[in-house]
């Protein structure tokens, strides 16, 4: 059953698509300006609850801003940061990993030592340290997350390349006179794409959670830009009085990470030759 086999990919992909549409078309979809404060209407519950106002679907926050609009706009930061980090960390990690794996000796020594240094610290701790040093901002956030994520790609790609370069097809191309970089780019690296795609999807989920954690700690993007993490953080002290301030951003993070993990899981099922043979 082809459709069942790809079910995870379909569901995960659908969730991600909805999020991307939300993020890209946020100004068209969101009912209000996410930053417009109406202090008189602060801490209104969702419209279906008692005291809810029909104009605020998911209620308002502690400054009287529309929760739904903020969640829709919040998806922008989550996805942008997630995607950018995955792309940049992927590029850096894959190239260093490929070079280290293929050329070995000094290149491998240097890259491995550097990546070991990064691996020695807990991932969130590096991100916190870098953010404290660089200060708030979307660019800095992506930078911090990238610096703490590239190692994963580097390690996996290096390992793959190490085994690939001993394979017969590589020896064959070498025998035909292929230059090192040509072989690396055209024959070795493309063969690592399957694993990289899988790490990238899982990595994106981790990055989104980390972004939320950093924003929660007040180290993410500036206060006026809505993000799910900072919404959680601001809503925390009102958890008795206005639980919707934490429930909805929490749900948004949950659904997003769930969708991306599902997609990653599905992709792994498809790409992993071991799993493929079992079917």
């Amino acid at each position, binding site marked *: 059953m082809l459709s069942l086999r790809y079910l995870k990919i379909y569901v995960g992909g659908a969730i991600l698509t909805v999020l991307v549409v939300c993020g890209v078309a946020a100004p068209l979809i969101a009912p209000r300006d996410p*930053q417009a*404060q109406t*202090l*008189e209407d*602060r801490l209104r519950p969702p419209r279906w609850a008692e005291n809810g106002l029909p104009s605020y679907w998911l209620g308002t926050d*502690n*400054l*009287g801003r529309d929760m739904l609009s903020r969640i829709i706009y919040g998806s922008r930061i989550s996805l942008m940061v997630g995607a950018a980090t995955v792309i940049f960390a992927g590029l850096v990690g894959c190239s260093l990993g490929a070079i280290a794996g293929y050329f070995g000796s000094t290149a491998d020594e240097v890259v491995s030592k550097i990546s070991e240094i990064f691996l020695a610290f807990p991932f969130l701790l590096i991100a916190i340290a870098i953010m*404290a040093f660089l*200060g*708030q901002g979307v660019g800095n956030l992506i930078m911090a997350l990238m610096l703490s994520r590239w190692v994963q790609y580097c390690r996996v790609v290096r390992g793959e390349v190490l085994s690939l370069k001993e394979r017969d097809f590589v020896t064959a191309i070498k025998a035909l006179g292929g230059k090192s970089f040509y072989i690396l780019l055209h024959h070795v690296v493309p063969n690592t794409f399957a694993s990289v795609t899988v790490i990238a999807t899982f990595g994106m989920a981790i990055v989104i959670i980390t972004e939320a954690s950093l924003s929660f700690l*007040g180290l993410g993007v*500036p*206060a*006026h830009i809505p993000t799910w993490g900072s919404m959680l953080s*601001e809503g925390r*002290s*009102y958890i*008795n*009085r206005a639980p919707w301030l934490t429930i909805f951003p929490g749900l948004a993070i949950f659904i997003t990470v769930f969708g991306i993990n599902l997609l990653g899981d599905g992709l792994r099922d498809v790409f992993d030759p071991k799993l493929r043979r079992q079917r």
Partner: protein
Amino acid sequence: MARKKSGMNRREFLQRSAALAVGTATWPQLLRHAHAASRDRVTIYQTSVADSIHPFNHSSNPIYGNWQHVIEPLVEYDFRRKDYAGVLAESWQFQGNKWIFKLRKGVKFHDGTTFTSKDVPFTIEKIRDEKGGSLQAFNFKEVADIQTPDDYTVIFVTKQPLAIFLDRLENRFMLSRAAGEKYGDKIYENIIGTGPYKFVSYQRGGNMVFTRNDDYWAGKAAIKEVIFKKVTEDAARLAALESGQADFINNVPDHEVARLRKHPRIRIDQVEGLRMFFLAINVAFKPWDNKLVRQAANYAVDAPAIVRNIFDGIGYPCNGPVGANVIGADPKLKRYPYNPQKAKELLAQAGFLNGCDIQLYYSPGRYPKDREVCQVVAAQMVKGGFRVELISQEWALFWDKQGVNGGRLPFYYIGRGGLMDADTLYDQYFRTGSTKRTNYSNPELDKIIEEQQKTPDMKKRVQLLQQAGKILMDEVPFVPLYNLADIYGAVKNLEWRTRPDERVKAWDMKIKA
């Protein structure tokens, strides 16, 4: 067979479990009655309690409150009279560079010896001993000599005339010289004072216990035993009060106030605090060098709306350059009314026809709800024609030479704590060269500040401070915002008078039958 031997079958087990469950569920109810403030003892949970047995190893208001149970100052500030009142001193005179104190007669230390003028220089020497751990030495940096012509007279000679000396002397608690001679280095472990309570025990992070001094010179206190305990977590303090473990707590979070006001056993007391919040303006930066822009900022920010909406109305917008309870406050002054239109007009006059770009700095988590406050301020200022970029910084970066104290921040949200006298704020923020926090310089204002610091007569000093206040309200090198409330929770049968200085005094307390 083994099961039989255990002596409990399933039914018994279920019955006992049920009994245990009921017991556990009702236990807090029982505790609640058992621990409600008894006639003899009061248990106080505070966010800060002495961190050391050394009574001079801090300079923090709540901790002054702890130690004042045992050791006492010469003078203290009376918030109702808005003037200094004698404690161990009966009267005083300010003459040129001399402060002459007449001491109270018949005051006994806890060991029965009499308090005399000889104890004063002994104590001041201990307070000046920074190597010995004192953090209060700076209060006597202007004192050149201390003379004791007789047993009940002390004369402080200062390098220059120093009208605000009482402010420096307010929290300097007197030790016994006889005890010093007897215990030497161990004086703090055997602390003896003249206070309404005697020291019993202290454990760091645990309890600090005092028992009543029945021979107290001002009449014995109503409550026999006092226990202070440091509990920094808001939720834990609150839970202790609600469960009856504590009779009194400080710093009740404002969003819990409405709920606790309905509590059958708990009373909430609030009082205007001494920490004043404002937006400081550094006039060394453009566009803040322009007075019209500074006034526009004052018209654009609606502090009463912030208090109403962010702090649930539990706060006190400043009417003028300082809060109403501060020495030197001027009841005739009014804050700039909220008027975004007027702000826009002023900006246009200043040449900013298409809005004015500014950055607002703050350090999140330092003050209550600072993140929310700054977002609201930014939104309000946008309506008044500014374009605001919010920048948050780590406290160390924000406060140090890279930030506020290096004069690097153009516009920032700040709170000045323990502000009892307007002089403290004016001298620190607006006097030429005293700090780089605003870089404001106005010879006329400097002259007034200098003059009031030399003026012994309180009325005249207040007039001078009010004069300074008027200049500041016109020049506005800042946007005065509000003082927040100090919120206390107490069991209902505990009576006490709220004070704005974060001090909790058990001898001001009474327990109703």
